[in-house]
């Protein structure tokens, strides 16, 4: 019973983190048909930004509570700036090319960003443990959980709700859904598709950076952290169905909880279980759980 609870809560924490990363990736793909391989690097940029702000802020001795708002804001701001730079500087020149070609372009962006991170922040690990420790722990039927981790679940729920509300209950969301449904018709109807693209990429980048920024206090921020993330995030979105936010949610819950179960029951299978689930789902539903098969065009 206790073990089950631990698995469930650990799984939810991990799922929340996965969802934050995967939501941005799947949103960008849904709207722009671009699988952004540099998404993990944007996540790393967010993590570095928040780790350095935390390091600086907690050394000054100002009230720690304001630190949370500050490091989350800084992660978002860096994500936004990096996203705009990438979209305006590189991606807009390759719109309309093959999906694979654009994948290679984002791979080039990934290579550039990975070294840019090393040039800006160096190759040593950053630690930003203060916000994580300051929140303390809560005991749930005798098992202590870090409050910071529990708060992460709340943040993921909030972000998920905002995304759902933005997409389904606002005018801009309606425009976005129109573009997801059919890009050419939307253009013909007078929707400013380039502006929608720019905005989507910026939102996706902010989501990646928030995920990185929030996770930074609970681990060490090191070069190369973005790559594992993009591989796992891809597994999540492809399990749920590429381009679907609901799919990202389902995928992250499925994979997050199974991974937590693996960590407690068969620790060697921690990474393997993620891909076993992905392969199983894909063997039954090749397009993922939430996406219908594409119609074939001659």
């Amino acid at each position, binding site marked *: 019973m206790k073990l089950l609870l631990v698995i469930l809560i650990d799984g939810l924490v991990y799922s929340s983190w996965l969802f934050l990363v995967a939501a941005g990736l799947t949103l960008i793909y849904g709207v722009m048909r671009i699988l952004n391989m540099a998404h993990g690097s944007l996540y790393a940029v967010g993590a570095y930004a928040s780790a350095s702000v935390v390091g600086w802020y907690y050394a000054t001795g100002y009230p720690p509570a304001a630190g949370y708002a500050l490091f989350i804001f800084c992660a978002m701001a860096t994500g936004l700036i990096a996203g705009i730079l990438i979209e305006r500087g*590189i991606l807009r020149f390759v719109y309309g090319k093959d999906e694979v070609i654009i994948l290679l372009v984002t791979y080039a962006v990934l290579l550039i960003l990975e070294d840019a991170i090393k040039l800006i922040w160096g190759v040593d690990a950053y630690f930003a443990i203060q916000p994580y420790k300051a929140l303390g722990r809560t005991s749930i039927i005798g098992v202590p959980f870090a409050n910071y981790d529990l708060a992460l679940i709340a943040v993921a729920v909030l972000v998920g709700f905002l995304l759902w509300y933005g997409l389904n209950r606002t005018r801009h969301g309606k425009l976005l859904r129109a573009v997801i449904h059919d890009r050419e018709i939307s253009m013909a109807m007078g929707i400013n598709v380039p502006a929608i693209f720019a905005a989507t990429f910026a939102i996706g980048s902010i989501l990646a950076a928030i995920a990185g920024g929030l996770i930074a206090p609970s681990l060490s921020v090191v070069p190369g952290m973005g790559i594992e993330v993009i591989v796992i995030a891809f597994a999540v979105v492809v399990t749920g169905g590429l381009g679907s936010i609901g799919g990202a949610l389902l995928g992250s819950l499925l994979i997050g909880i199974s991974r937590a179960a693996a960590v407690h029951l068969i620790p060697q299978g921690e990474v393997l279980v993620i891909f076993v689930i992905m392969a199983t789902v894909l063997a039954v539903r090749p397009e993922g759980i939430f996406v219908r098969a594409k119609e074939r065009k001659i």
Partner: protein
Amino acid sequence: MSRGKDRTIPLLTLGFSLLLAANFVMPRWLSFLVMVSLARSLVVIGIVVLMRSGLVSFGQGFFYCLGGYTAGIAGNYFGITDISLTLLISIAISVLAGGLIGLLLCNYREIFFAMLTLAVSMILYSVIVKNPTLGGSDGFNVPPPHIFGISPAMADPGLSLPAVTCIVVYLVSVLIHRYFKSGLGYAGVAVRLNEIRVEYLGASPKVIVYSKYILAGVLASIGGTLIAYATGHVDPELAYWTTSGEFVFVGLLGGVSHVAAPVIASVLFQVLRSYALDLAPYVWQMLLGFVLLMIILFLPEGLWSVIARLNPKRRGDESAP
């Protein structure tokens, strides 16, 4: 095919014979560099086989690593150091692994194929890193090979291993050239251009992609085995995404319209890499990124298209993308 005789095979023979002869007079560091780039070019040829069918694999490191570890494990645990035997074993293993994974992958194209191959190689990477019996993240040393029963201590290893590599790569490039000009080779181009037409013609795109995935895997594992003997060491880096990514880069750099393109690009890449990593280790990937962008935007058919443009007879090769 009315554009004159195909002189590729005589030219390949000439080129590789010269390389083989040069091996005996080149300084050791140069012949090592050539050996490494030739071994790696096998992986790139595999990438090119897939690219001609419109598929980009970000996970050839998987097979590269399998090949390398086959040499290492055969030598350390079973005492098998004969290079012809280990090459056969790694071919068998890669056919098996590729045949199994290919069952899932042959349903996917484009970005799905790219990302799933990446996932496969990252699984192998994490399995090896977490497994101390496979050497963990340090890997292990590979005992020096025997070549057809002759101990390398007797026949100078600095000469014989590059020679073997050279011969293997020569044989592979002749075979692959023939393959490109065969029905199955052109079937790949047809899959890239229009898969449904291929089906209407009575061929199965899935089977074509499946066979090409296995072929590319076999080539990569041969490359991995050779590189393991060349460097005398294997580690999980062989399966890491940067390794696979470099192969994709070299494939794009050379272009896909001729089998010699990946070989030439691979040598060029290795030379640049050894200087760049010395001079500026922290901007090497950034440099790769910028060059990759330039290639995609301005030279989508790779360096080979520059060579082809100089020779008007080769213009308009129908297999170029």
